[in-house]
């Protein structure tokens, strides 16, 4: 799975949770709070993405996330690890 495919999953989750953002282009450099998401929205986006990607990232690492790109870094790594272990 490419980084772009992971990004598409995350974007779909953002649009699902924060419907007011539908139609707005989301960039990797965006910050979810700046986009108008509250703390509960972010928890939903993260969990929904992990569920869809069938990955688990420790919450301790997720607390470091600032921009969308940070989230993608973590998810991309977890997807790659999973694909290595379970080809």
């Amino acid at each position: 799975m490419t980084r772009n495919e992971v990004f598409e999953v995350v974007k779909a989750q953002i649009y699902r949770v924060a419907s007011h953002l539908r139609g707005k282009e989301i960039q990797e450099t965006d910050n979810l709070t700046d986009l108008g998401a509250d703390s509960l929205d972010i928890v939903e986006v993260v969990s929904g993405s992990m569920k869809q990607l069938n990955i688990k990232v420790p919450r301790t690492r997720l607390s470091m996330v600032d921009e969308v790109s940070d989230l993608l870094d973590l998810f991309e790594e977890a997807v790659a690890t999973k694909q290595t272990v379970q080809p």
Partner: protein
Amino acid sequence: MTTNDERRVAITGMGIISPIGENLADYLAALRQGCSGITRWKQLDERCYSRIGGDLSDFDLAAHLEHVGIHYPEALVQMARKLLRATPLSGRLTTAAALQAFVHAGLHETPVAPARIGHILAGHNLNGPYIHDNAMTYREEPEFIDPLYGVMYLDTDVLAVIAQLLNLRGPCFSVGGACASGNLALLASLDLLRAGRADALVVSGAASPLGFVTRQAWSLIDALSIRSFNDTPTQASRPFDARREGFVPSEGAAVVVLETFASAQRRGAPIHAELMGAASTSNASRTTKPDLEAQVRVMGDALRDAGLVPEQVDYINAHATSTPLGDAVEVQAIKQLFGAHAYAIPVNATKSLVGHCLTSAAIVELVATVLQIQHNFVHPTINQTVADPELDLDFVPNQARPHQIQVALSNAFGFGGLNACVVVGANPYPQ
């Protein structure tokens, strides 16, 4: 209005989401016609004894907001959609009813100062199926439980969602008393308004969706109708009838806006009825067995709180769940308190139509009571086919009829020996 009216309490708004109507007009029509809302459960587990109930599990919030909410302010509709998108069923049903009541009271146009309007929620154990589903998910994969479970499993989330949506910043808490919760919340609200702690309160009867475990558990203690009417569910809830065999759970929510007469007058709000008095008593017993003395006492206390005597009551909305013992003891209590007058007043059972809405039941029934007061009729108690010789009051069998109501009394009795009663009067200042 006189100076003495300052602290009298009006009902200025009502909302309802029930199996016989998801707005006041449809609910009123169903009450008049004697429609039953009881069906087979839409999700069945063949191992569970309980097969029938008032099922709103497929409630469509978006369709409801488009239909009933067509005149709601757009900002309220948008916020409701966002807040309720992932909210479990009780919160969706209860909030939809709260929106109706809020708009019905005109609070979207002539508001009460946010710090002077609060929210009292009747109900507890509101999210059983949601909690059960997440427990099942946890067994499979702890990471994938609902990310908002930590917020939404709490009953107070329903309280908070409605407070956020309607910007209610005054007194805000939930009241728990099993199937008497609704009347106990009305009692608490009446006291708060009389004490001047708020000018208005949204009082929500929260829907109590039941999971399989609770349905099964209540079947095991012989509380539910599980034997004779699974193939004819509309006949199962039959309070007072000789073939009654247990209550039929249902998922309705109802909400009222209570307000001091002074506040209603300031806002020019319509007074639909007056909440005149309330009372609460206990059987001091864990069992589900009703207590005659405590029922007589709670009705008498509520009337005294309203400054009335039994002979002034001209309608009773009975608790009447359709259980063999419960209905019999309530009829006995009414006879004991009212004497010969008991035979002169209609006593009907809204649960024959809606089923038993549990923690919201008393507010579902308050809305029915106010509609009957306003429209000068009494709704039927349906499924009256075989008379129980010991139950000989006027239960308004099977057909609605015209009836003028000035003073109504409404009972609610809950597991744990909790009894609560409210007294409702017609608007003392009709136009």
